[in-house]
Protein backbone atom coordinates (compact mmCIF):
# COMPACT_ATOMS: atom_id res chain seq x y z
CA UNK A 1 0.00 0.00 0.00
CA UNK A 2 1.17 3.50 -0.77
CA UNK A 3 0.71 6.65 1.20
CA UNK A 4 -1.76 9.18 -0.12
CA UNK A 5 1.00 11.33 -1.59
CA UNK A 6 2.18 8.66 -3.99
CA UNK A 7 -0.86 6.42 -4.32
CA UNK A 8 -2.58 5.89 -7.63
CA UNK A 9 -5.96 4.54 -8.54
CA UNK A 10 -4.41 1.12 -9.10
CA UNK A 11 -2.60 0.97 -5.80
CA UNK A 12 -3.39 -2.13 -3.78
CA UNK A 13 -5.95 -1.61 -1.05
CA UNK A 14 -4.41 -4.12 1.28
CA UNK A 15 -0.99 -5.42 2.21
CA UNK A 16 0.36 -8.88 2.81
CA UNK A 17 3.65 -9.41 4.56
CA UNK A 18 5.79 -12.23 5.86
CA UNK A 19 6.69 -12.32 9.51
CA UNK A 20 9.97 -14.09 10.00
CA UNK A 21 10.51 -15.37 13.50
CA UNK A 22 14.04 -16.01 14.61
CA UNK A 23 13.31 -19.47 15.98
CA UNK A 24 11.85 -20.70 12.72
CA UNK A 25 12.98 -18.61 9.81
CA UNK A 26 12.05 -21.19 7.21
CA UNK A 27 8.37 -20.95 8.05
CA UNK A 28 7.28 -17.33 8.05
CA UNK A 29 4.00 -16.16 9.45
CA UNK A 30 1.54 -14.06 7.53
CA UNK A 31 0.39 -10.54 8.21
CA UNK A 32 -2.61 -9.13 6.41
CA UNK A 33 -3.15 -5.43 6.77
CA UNK A 34 -6.45 -3.79 5.97
CA UNK A 35 -7.42 -0.18 6.31
CA UNK A 36 -11.17 0.22 6.03
CA UNK A 37 -11.03 3.82 4.82
CA UNK A 38 -8.27 3.29 2.29
CA UNK A 39 -10.08 3.36 -1.02
CA UNK A 40 -9.25 4.87 -4.31
CA UNK A 41 -11.82 7.59 -3.91
CA UNK A 42 -10.15 8.78 -0.78
CA UNK A 43 -6.61 8.25 -1.91
CA UNK A 44 -6.45 9.25 -5.55
CA UNK A 45 -8.50 12.38 -4.98
CA UNK A 46 -6.28 13.28 -2.06
CA UNK A 47 -9.26 14.71 -0.30
CA UNK A 48 -11.06 13.67 2.81
CA UNK A 49 -13.56 10.87 2.91
CA UNK A 50 -16.25 13.24 4.11
CA UNK A 51 -15.58 15.55 1.18
CA UNK A 52 -16.21 12.75 -1.25
CA UNK A 53 -19.36 11.62 0.50
CA UNK A 54 -20.77 15.11 0.47
CA UNK A 55 -19.87 15.45 -3.17
CA UNK A 56 -21.56 12.20 -3.91
CA UNK A 57 -24.82 13.16 -2.29
CA UNK A 58 -24.90 16.75 -3.48
CA UNK A 59 -24.02 16.40 -7.15
CA UNK A 60 -26.16 13.98 -9.05
CA UNK A 61 -23.85 13.64 -12.01
CA UNK A 62 -21.30 12.23 -9.67
CA UNK A 63 -23.72 9.84 -8.03
CA UNK A 64 -22.07 6.74 -9.33
CA UNK A 65 -21.89 3.56 -7.33
CA UNK A 66 -19.32 3.96 -4.66
CA UNK A 67 -18.33 0.60 -3.47
CA UNK A 68 -16.73 0.10 -0.14
CA UNK A 69 -15.00 -3.02 0.72
CA UNK A 70 -12.03 -5.22 0.82
CA UNK A 71 -12.92 -8.84 0.63
CA UNK A 72 -11.08 -11.65 2.25
CA UNK A 73 -12.05 -14.90 0.69
CA UNK A 74 -11.48 -18.31 2.18
CA UNK A 75 -10.55 -16.76 5.47
CA UNK A 76 -13.86 -17.92 6.79
CA UNK A 77 -17.00 -19.38 5.25
CA UNK A 78 -18.36 -15.88 5.01
CA UNK A 79 -16.83 -12.81 3.48
CA UNK A 80 -15.42 -10.23 5.76
CA UNK A 81 -16.60 -6.76 4.98
CA UNK A 82 -15.51 -3.62 6.71
CA UNK A 83 -17.93 -0.84 6.04
CA UNK A 84 -16.68 2.51 7.24
CA UNK A 85 -18.70 4.66 4.93
CA UNK A 86 -20.19 8.00 5.74
CA UNK A 87 -23.91 7.36 5.76
CA UNK A 88 -26.25 10.33 6.13
CA UNK A 89 -29.58 9.57 7.72
CA UNK A 90 -31.57 10.17 4.55
CA UNK A 91 -29.71 7.62 2.45
CA UNK A 92 -30.75 4.10 1.90
CA UNK A 93 -29.08 1.96 4.52
CA UNK A 94 -26.48 -0.45 3.28
CA UNK A 95 -26.90 0.59 -0.33
CA UNK A 96 -23.16 0.41 -0.79
CA UNK A 97 -23.10 -3.04 0.64
CA UNK A 98 -25.50 -4.21 -2.02
CA UNK A 99 -23.27 -2.58 -4.61
CA UNK A 100 -20.31 -4.26 -3.07
CA UNK A 101 -21.68 -7.71 -3.59
CA UNK A 102 -22.54 -6.89 -7.20
CA UNK A 103 -18.96 -5.87 -7.80
CA UNK A 104 -17.72 -8.99 -6.09
CA UNK A 105 -19.74 -11.09 -8.49
CA UNK A 106 -18.66 -9.05 -11.48
CA UNK A 107 -15.06 -8.99 -10.44
CA UNK A 108 -14.96 -12.70 -9.73
CA UNK A 109 -16.23 -13.43 -13.23
CA UNK A 110 -13.55 -11.22 -14.68
CA UNK A 111 -10.81 -12.82 -12.65
CA UNK A 112 -11.49 -16.19 -14.21
CA UNK A 113 -10.38 -14.87 -17.59
CA UNK A 114 -7.67 -12.60 -16.30
CA UNK A 115 -4.19 -14.15 -16.62
CA UNK A 116 -2.81 -11.82 -13.99
CA UNK A 117 -5.64 -10.96 -11.68
CA UNK A 118 -5.26 -8.59 -8.80
CA UNK A 119 -5.16 -11.46 -6.41
CA UNK A 120 -2.58 -12.28 -3.82
CA UNK A 121 -2.57 -15.80 -2.52
CA UNK A 122 -0.82 -16.69 0.63
CA UNK A 123 -1.32 -19.26 3.32
CA UNK A 124 -4.59 -20.41 1.88
CA UNK A 125 -6.00 -16.90 1.85
CA UNK A 126 -7.02 -15.13 -1.28
CA UNK A 127 -7.32 -11.39 -1.25
CA UNK A 128 -9.03 -9.62 -4.06
CA UNK A 129 -8.59 -5.96 -4.67
CA UNK A 130 -12.01 -4.91 -5.77
CA UNK A 131 -11.69 -1.21 -5.93
CA UNK A 132 -10.81 -0.42 -9.49
CA UNK A 133 -12.31 2.59 -11.22
CA UNK A 134 -13.49 0.54 -14.16
CA UNK A 135 -15.45 -1.66 -11.80
CA UNK A 136 -17.31 1.23 -10.33
CA UNK A 137 -18.09 2.72 -13.70
CA UNK A 138 -18.98 -0.50 -15.45
CA UNK A 139 -22.59 -0.87 -16.51
CA UNK A 140 -22.64 -4.39 -15.20
CA UNK A 141 -22.38 -3.18 -11.67
CA UNK A 142 -24.84 -0.31 -11.78
CA UNK A 143 -27.87 -0.49 -9.60
CA UNK A 144 -31.33 -1.06 -11.07
CA UNK A 145 -32.37 2.39 -9.95
CA UNK A 146 -29.56 3.95 -11.94
CA UNK A 147 -30.41 1.95 -15.00
CA UNK A 148 -33.91 3.37 -14.93
CA UNK A 149 -32.76 6.97 -14.95
Amino acid at each position, binding site marked *: *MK*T*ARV*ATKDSPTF*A*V*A*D*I*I*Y*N*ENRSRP*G*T*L*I*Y*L*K*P*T*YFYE*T*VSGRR*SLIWHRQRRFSAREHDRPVVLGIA*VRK*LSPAWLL*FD*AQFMPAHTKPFADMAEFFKVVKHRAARLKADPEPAV*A*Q*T*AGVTLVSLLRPDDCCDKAVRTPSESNR
Partner: protein
Amino acid sequence: LETKRSGRPLAAATPCRSLRLTNDKSANIYLSDGGHFDNLGLYEMIRRRCRFILVVDAEADKDFAFEDLGKAIRQVVIDLDATSVSRTSK
Protein backbone atom coordinates in the same frame (compact mmCIF):
# COMPACT_ATOMS: atom_id res chain seq x y z
CA LEU B 1 -8.05 6.60 32.68
CA GLU B 2 -6.92 7.39 36.15
CA THR B 3 -9.02 6.24 39.04
CA LYS B 4 -8.84 5.38 42.65
CA ARG B 5 -10.29 2.19 44.00
CA SER B 6 -13.10 4.28 45.39
CA GLY B 7 -14.15 4.88 41.77
CA ARG B 8 -13.60 8.61 41.82
CA PRO B 9 -11.03 10.30 39.57
CA LEU B 10 -8.06 11.46 41.52
CA ALA B 11 -5.98 14.33 40.20
CA ALA B 12 -3.27 13.51 42.68
CA ALA B 13 -2.65 10.25 40.87
CA THR B 14 -0.93 12.07 38.04
CA PRO B 15 2.36 12.56 39.89
CA CYS B 16 2.24 8.93 40.95
CA ARG B 17 1.86 7.90 37.35
CA SER B 18 4.73 10.12 36.30
CA LEU B 19 6.93 8.43 38.86
CA ARG B 20 5.67 4.99 37.84
CA LEU B 21 4.27 4.39 41.29
CA THR B 22 0.96 3.02 40.04
CA ASN B 23 0.45 -0.70 39.72
CA ASP B 24 -2.26 -3.22 40.38
CA LYS B 25 -1.41 -3.32 44.09
CA SER B 26 -1.51 0.41 44.76
CA ALA B 27 -4.48 2.58 45.60
CA ASN B 28 -4.20 4.40 42.30
CA ILE B 29 -4.55 2.50 39.08
CA TYR B 30 -3.59 3.75 35.65
CA LEU B 31 -5.45 2.08 32.86
CA SER B 32 -4.89 2.64 29.16
CA ASP B 33 -5.96 1.01 25.93
CA GLY B 34 -2.32 0.78 24.93
CA GLY B 35 -2.72 3.07 21.97
CA HIS B 36 0.10 5.30 23.09
CA PHE B 37 2.46 2.40 22.47
CA ASP B 38 0.90 0.30 19.71
CA ASN B 39 -2.44 1.31 18.31
CA LEU B 40 -2.85 -1.80 16.17
CA GLY B 41 -2.15 -4.59 18.63
CA LEU B 42 0.43 -5.91 16.20
CA TYR B 43 3.28 -5.82 18.68
CA GLU B 44 1.61 -8.19 21.10
CA MET B 45 0.58 -10.58 18.39
CA ILE B 46 4.11 -10.87 17.11
CA ARG B 47 5.50 -11.11 20.62
CA ARG B 48 3.23 -14.10 21.12
CA ARG B 49 4.52 -15.61 17.89
CA CYS B 50 1.18 -15.72 16.12
CA ARG B 51 1.49 -17.20 12.68
CA PHE B 52 -1.48 -15.56 11.07
CA ILE B 53 -2.31 -11.97 11.92
CA LEU B 54 -5.11 -9.89 10.47
CA VAL B 55 -4.78 -6.21 11.26
CA VAL B 56 -7.67 -3.85 10.68
CA ASP B 57 -6.37 -0.32 10.97
CA ALA B 58 -9.08 2.13 11.96
CA GLU B 59 -6.85 4.83 13.34
CA ALA B 60 -7.37 8.51 12.64
CA ASP B 61 -5.12 8.84 9.63
CA LYS B 62 -6.65 11.47 7.40
CA ASP B 63 -3.49 11.81 5.32
CA PHE B 64 -3.11 8.05 4.84
CA ALA B 65 0.46 8.06 6.03
CA PHE B 66 0.31 4.69 7.85
CA GLU B 67 2.14 6.09 10.81
CA ASP B 68 0.95 3.48 13.29
CA LEU B 69 1.84 0.61 11.01
CA GLY B 70 5.34 1.96 10.46
CA LYS B 71 5.77 2.56 14.15
CA ALA B 72 4.58 -0.91 15.08
CA ILE B 73 6.92 -2.59 12.62
CA ARG B 74 9.83 -0.49 13.84
CA GLN B 75 9.07 -1.41 17.43
CA VAL B 76 8.84 -5.08 16.56
CA VAL B 77 12.16 -5.08 14.76
CA ILE B 78 13.90 -3.22 17.59
CA ASP B 79 12.37 -4.93 20.60
CA LEU B 80 11.77 -8.44 19.35
CA ASP B 81 15.24 -9.22 18.18
CA ALA B 82 15.73 -10.89 14.82
CA THR B 83 12.09 -10.74 13.94
CA SER B 84 11.38 -9.07 10.66
CA VAL B 85 8.24 -8.05 8.84
CA SER B 86 8.64 -7.78 5.11
CA ARG B 87 6.42 -7.56 2.12
CA THR B 88 5.57 -10.97 0.85
CA SER B 89 7.18 -12.06 -2.37
CA LYS B 90 4.31 -14.27 -3.40
